[in-house]
């Protein structure tokens, strides 16, 4: 039985969550490894959410927001665009592989895109192996 990673998806309500809904409405199939948590805007994503996720057993965290310029709240996603890279830097210093945290723009019309991102990331993390609490992946 191959390793099934647990990935927390934090999606903004207006674009990405709607995009994920569209994937469902159009019956697009993708791996069940991502479990979605809804926030109003990717700008709401507090770096501690990501840490919390890893602490409570996640192998990866996927954050999705509206495309730049399309944020329902004008510019929240720009905030995310600035915060998440900082966070990733910090994580890498903790020995957590870069691929375990991913920030993507998914619009309400991009159901297919959401699905393929999920499949892709799941595959990536399968390769990385499970995230072990004591810093970094087992092979990292």
């Amino acid at each position, binding site marked *: 039985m191959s390793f099934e990673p647990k990935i*927390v998806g934090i999606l903004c309500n207006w674009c990405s969550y709607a995009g994920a809904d569209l994937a*469902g409405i159009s019956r697009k199939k993708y791996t069940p490894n991502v479990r979605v948590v809804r926030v109003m805007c990717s700008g*709401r994503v507090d770096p501690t959410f990501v840490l919390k996720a890893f602490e409570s057993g996640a192998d990866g965290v996927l954050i999705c927001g509206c495309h730049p310029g399309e944020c*329902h709240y004008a510019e929240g996603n720009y905030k995310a665009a600035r915060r998440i890279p900082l966070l990733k830097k910090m994580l890498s210093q903790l020995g957590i592989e870069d691929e375990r945290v991913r920030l993507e723009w998914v619009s309400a019309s991009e159901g297919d895109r959401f*699905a393929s991102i999920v499949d892709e990331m799941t595959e990536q993390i399968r390769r990385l192996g499970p995230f072990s609490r004591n810093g970094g992946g087992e092979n990292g």
Partner: protein
Amino acid sequence: MERRIGVYICHCGSNIAGTVDCEKVTEFARGLDSVVVARDYKYMCSDPGQNLIKDDIKEHGLNRVVVASCSPRMHEPTFRHACQDAGLNQYLFEMANIREHCSWVHEDKGMATEKAKALVNAAVRRVYYHEPLETKEVPVNPNVLVVGGGIAGIQAALEVADSGHQVYLVEKDPSIGGHMAMFDKTFPTLDCAACILTPKMTTIGQHPYIQLMTCSEVEDVSGYVGNFKVKIRKRAKYIDEDKCTGCGQCQELCPISVPSEFDCGLGKRKAIYIPFPYAVPNKAVIDPVKCSHLKGLAEGKDVCRICEKGIEKKGLPGCEADAIDFKQKDEIVEVEVGNIIVATGFQQFDPSVIYQYGYGRYDNVFTGLEFERMSNASGPTNGEVLLADGRKPESIAILHCVGSRDENYHKYCSRVCCMYSLKYSHLLREKVPEAAAYQLYIDMRCAGSGYEEFYERLQEEGVNFVRGRAGEITNIAERPEEEGKLIVICEDTLVRRKRRIPVDMVIMSCALEPRADADQIAKTFSLSRKADGFFLEKHPKLDPVATMTDGVFVVGCCQSPKDIPDTVAQASAAACRALAMISKGKVEIEAAIAVVDEELCAGCKICVDLCPYKAISFDEEKKVSHINEAVCKGCGVCVAACPSGAISGRHFTTEQIMAEIEGVLV
């Protein structure tokens, strides 16, 4: 206070139950902390389904409710109301999306069920921390802003104004009328566009409840549903509108003539001009880019001004109404409205990028709009269909799907081209009866009342229908009969032969595409755009005129290509939505907003600049930030940014989100 949570798993017929083992999930939910009752049911959104919840709330004294079914974007309101009916605050409810995010996207029953459990668990953990919230109501400003003066904007404006509410109609061009004003006849009834449009246009001009602003554009929108503040730039026309009588004397005098936008460059206008005979307002404007006096002023010279002074030696007086005012400046107007209807329309696809069709290289290849003007009695050729050299064409080819249904340009079908192409054939038959007309089509799409009948009528009129898309248009003759002609090369896919069709004139039925400035417009009114570039409606079927931004509606071709009947229907629909809100008089505003804990606030002011809605102000006395509840939209950017954790986002508190994250990871 003790938490008493009820959990309800929906089968959604087989939509969920087909992939997720609902009984197992229910069983799992029963075992969760603080859950006092868990049930599964065929259709939770049905009345009996909702009654299950209501009864349990009363019987088991539930104080938190979780429903696991479809997307909250679908039925959250339904279940919130159910809770409210049973006397439970609607914010003590949480939804788990086990359809769109689970049963519909996974095939493995086992894994889907596991995921469903996790999502339910997360919802239960989250709802544990939910707090009752009171939604506030604010009054709705009864004024309405309509942006764009095409048929869509005109219709919407009239609907609202006729109900006795103030409308501000903003149009960037000197006259309203939009594309429809350029058309000659309209399909399938063939009534003349002007005849049915001009009455509406004049009404707009005279309507006591409509303030029309032409040569104007919306620069900034602030505020929120029911209470928008709008900044409008009125560009200088260099004409005193109150004085101008529209006599047209000035444009007779003006020595500068330039291609007319209204006639698609086939005709000319002056630097001072009235856009077209039935323009509304029927007043002159000066084109600052072309007017030699205004250009002179820039270099400190005082030239021309013939329109103002007239030509003495010829005894021609200048503007007798003394309406010309070269000193006029742009002005910024601010208005307050409760609802905004965006009707900014489309632009015609520029076929010159399809090199092999030769538009711009061959004189006698025309766009649809050019042909509309040509066949219009008030147009540049007085309604005669003429070749560039003035001859009458003996044969004409009409090309469908130019820029539409084409991976290289626009994938979508522009919906109206088949019909207006048929209309062109009919007009040609009227104006050059002896000429042969060819229609090169891929599929004839005539879905609409009276449309298929119109197609049949044209077949009877003897149009040559060729089922095939033109590959290219060339002027290189290979046979004598091709000399001096344009040769349309295509496959007649019904006889399976390559054909070279020599014609005198080619008309291209060009795609309708999003306006070049659609992106700017989207930003101004915080709209989203679809993959094809048109504005995104709230729901493609059930909410086609509303948008993700409450109080802002989209109608007409800025939302997707459509014909006049559909546009008018949509415009009326949007007006009705706005009026509904106006007649209700008040609107609920989001309770899930951010609040500052003044005890914790360190007064660092980081949040103040972060807020995209300028909802946060700084209280200099108390040295703390303050959030305007009416303006805050609850995006949570400030919450995530506050270094001292003084700001919390109601209904999306860190506590709640953390609990949910923990929850999905069982």
